[in-house]
């Protein structure tokens, strides 16, 4: 059979490949997904994709759907929860079947939003009602509404810090390190926990702090134009130097390579860990952990990044996942009705202790400490996120990925060669190089 069959197989393969590659026409792109005026007029089954497997499993989401059905009796809401949300949805987005309502995956380039999602409204009007609209604004139209926003800062165990004799928030990185040192000496607890193995606690909380240092809402956008993001005094320099110093001065856990996020919550609640840099969304989870461990949930405190501008603490306020409507959805009004109801009526963000996407809502109780101590919340602009991400991906640094900070931690504890300055210089060099190529 040899040659003839082989060529036939190759031909078939090629044809199938070509067929596999084409396919999928452009959908009717421009119609805005508007919520219906008459709730009884919409019907259909909508599928909502979510990353909250926990809320789907314990029935919380079902309860929301039942509430929703009181207003919209004809709409049936189904949930699909995914543990590896990013990975799975990214692949499904190559088809038309990615739910009716979904959370916009981080890997989708902003410029591609109009190809995947139905617009939700003109940005100028959306801006009046919602926070974080600039994150999904493409050419004057908004494609997503945030599930909630989080403020950034250190979760810490108040009781433990008090035992170490610290009552005031540290105002500079040096002071913060001294406090950690005091905790280590006086209480024997692990002053800081990196969660190195799980990785994400090294990526998003630290990168989200860009802006907390300079108190600048444009801090993230400016990365698209700056030549050396890690130069002295810059946000990234201060942030990464602090992480380096924490690890270098042995103020973090002994063996970072086998950390465990779930366990770390209990350890912090019990006062065996002093602090972790996270978002305010984590406060409710840690309070739960404290309750389960038989500790006082009020001991879980939240402090801003140890840096002051003009005598004032700043903390960035950033959007979590944004909900969007699939452009291929057959039930766009129902999908939009769900998003609006979920944002306005469900009480989801309050339940999570997070900042609502609605401008009219007050700050949640978890941020009481911030409000009382006059921490300035900086709602960080995401207008140039597309450009920043393009450079970031081209440079393969990964500001929102764990790898480069894992290496930073390795350098800090001497597991890999190099010094902090060399490493930051190298990052600067790679960034500058990528900025040149990605711009063209």
């Amino acid at each position: 059979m040899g040659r003839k069959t082989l060529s036939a197989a190759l031909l078939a393969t090629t044809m199938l490949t070509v067929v596999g590659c084409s396919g999928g026409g452009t959908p009717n792109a421009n119609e805005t997904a508007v919520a219906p005026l008459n709730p009884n007029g919409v019907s259909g089954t909508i599928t909502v994709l979510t990353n909250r497997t926990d809320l789907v499993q314990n029935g919380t989401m079902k309860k929301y759907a039942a509430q929703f059905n009181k207003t919209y009796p004809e709409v049936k809401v189904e949930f699909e929860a995914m543990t590896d949300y990013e990975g799975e949805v990214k692949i499904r987005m190559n088809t038309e079947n990615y739910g009716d309502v979904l959370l916009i995956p981080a890997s989708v380039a902003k410029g591609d939003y109009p190809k995947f999602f139905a617009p939700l409204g003109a940005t100028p009007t959306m801006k009046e009602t919602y926070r974080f609209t600039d994150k999904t604004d493409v050419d004057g139209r908004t494609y997503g509404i945030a599930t909630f926003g989080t403020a950034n800062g250190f979760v810490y165990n108040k009781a433990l810090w008090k035992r170490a004799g610290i009552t005031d928030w540290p105002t500079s990185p040096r002071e913060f390190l001294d406090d950690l040192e005091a905790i280590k000496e006086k209480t024997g607890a692990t002053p800081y926990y990196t969660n190195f193995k799980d990785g994400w606690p090294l990526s998003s909380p630290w990168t989200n702090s860009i802006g907390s240092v300079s108190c600048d809402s444009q801090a993230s956008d400016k990365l698209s134009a700056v030549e050396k993001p890690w130069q002295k005094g810059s946000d990234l320099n201060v942030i990464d130097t602090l992480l380096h110093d924490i690890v270098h001065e042995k103020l973090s856990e002994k063996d970072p390579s086998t950390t465990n996020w779930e366990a770390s919550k209990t350890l912090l609640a019990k006062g065996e860990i002093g602090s972790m840099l996270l978002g305010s969304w984590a406060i409710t989870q840690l309070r739960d952990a404290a309750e389960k461990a038989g500790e006082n949930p009020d001991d879980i405190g939240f402090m801003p990044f140890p840096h002051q501008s003009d005598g004032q603490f700043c903390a960035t306020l950033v959007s979590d996942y944004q909900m969007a409507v699939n452009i291929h959805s057959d039930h766009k009004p129902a999908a939009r009705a769900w998003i609006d109801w979920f944002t306005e009526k469900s009480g989801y963000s309050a339940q999570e202790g997070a900042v609502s996407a609605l401008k009219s809502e007050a700050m949640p109780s978890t941020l009481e400490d911030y409000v009382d101590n006059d921490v300035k919340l900086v709602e960080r602009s995401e207008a140039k996120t597309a450009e920043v991400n393009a450079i970031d991906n081209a440079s393969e640094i990964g500001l929102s990925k764990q790898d480069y900070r894992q290496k930073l931690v390795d350098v800090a504890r001497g597991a890999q060669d190099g010094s902090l300055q060399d490493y930051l210089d190298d990052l600067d060099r790679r960034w500058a190089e990528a900025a040149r190529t990605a711009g063209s």
Partner: protein
Amino acid sequence: MTRTTTSTAAPPPAPAAAPDPGGRRTRRSATRPRTWRDHPLRRVTPWLFLLVPLALLVTFTYVPVGNMIYYSFTDWDGVSPDRDHVGADNYVQLFTRPELFRVFAVSLYYLAASVAQIAIALWFATVLSFDLRFRNLFKGILFFPYLINGVAIGFVFLYFFQDGGTLDSILSFLGLGGDHAWLGDPESANTSLAGVSVWRFTGLNFVLFLGAIQSVPGELYEAAQLDGATRWQQFRHIIAPSIRPVLSLSVILAISGSLSVFEIPYIMTGGATGTSTFVIQTVKLAFQFNKTGLASACAVVLLLIILLITWIQRRLVPDEKVDLV
């Protein structure tokens, strides 16, 4: 079978993939030479049987590979509906960035480990091929790790190597210290991970070797024993030659395996602390930095490297027909 039919295809034109070898065909074509042409269905029949497996093979193997090769010539980011052809750009980039190949150094740990693994498997296979008490129990114990899912193994050993975990407890119980961050620095982390891989795959090699050894007819051992051959001589002159093909297969598997290690380091360290391998790096390029084009090129290059090494290995150690009797 297929080869003989192509080479002798000239005289009777029809039998492209005749199911029967030589004898019967000549007899039939002698008596009724035209039947093959009269019944085109008979020519098609073998292909009808092959239709389903071939369709599966093409759909799930060749089309994805074809797609991957196609992606490697584009700048696709993995999500966007648009992609541009960039020619050999990805390959040029790949070969002008030496740091992308540096991760192959990590494979050396696994290569060294697989040498140990083959030796251990061979030793156990030889020992257990003789009549031994609890033989089947030992066979089971050795093969068992291979049956466990790689992800589960990753988690089990994560606790095993944890600071103050199983390994540390055992060591301190034996008074050997036991305060070592096993996954803490590149050298110890890679050694530990390679050790896990040995633990996992020894069973597979062991079973392959054992099968080969047991396929040696028993009379040979008897005859050897009658001639007064020692166990070592039996191994040297009966077992070793008879398992050569399997041994060379194991070597190929070991080399390609060490070049494409993925599961265990990805689950246990995620490629941190200098444990990143070529495949982990490829996955990160594709799914973290959205460079699906470049990552596809990496995958194609890895495939070519493995094919090349296999080819060289086959040239160096040709597969001779072993005839013991």
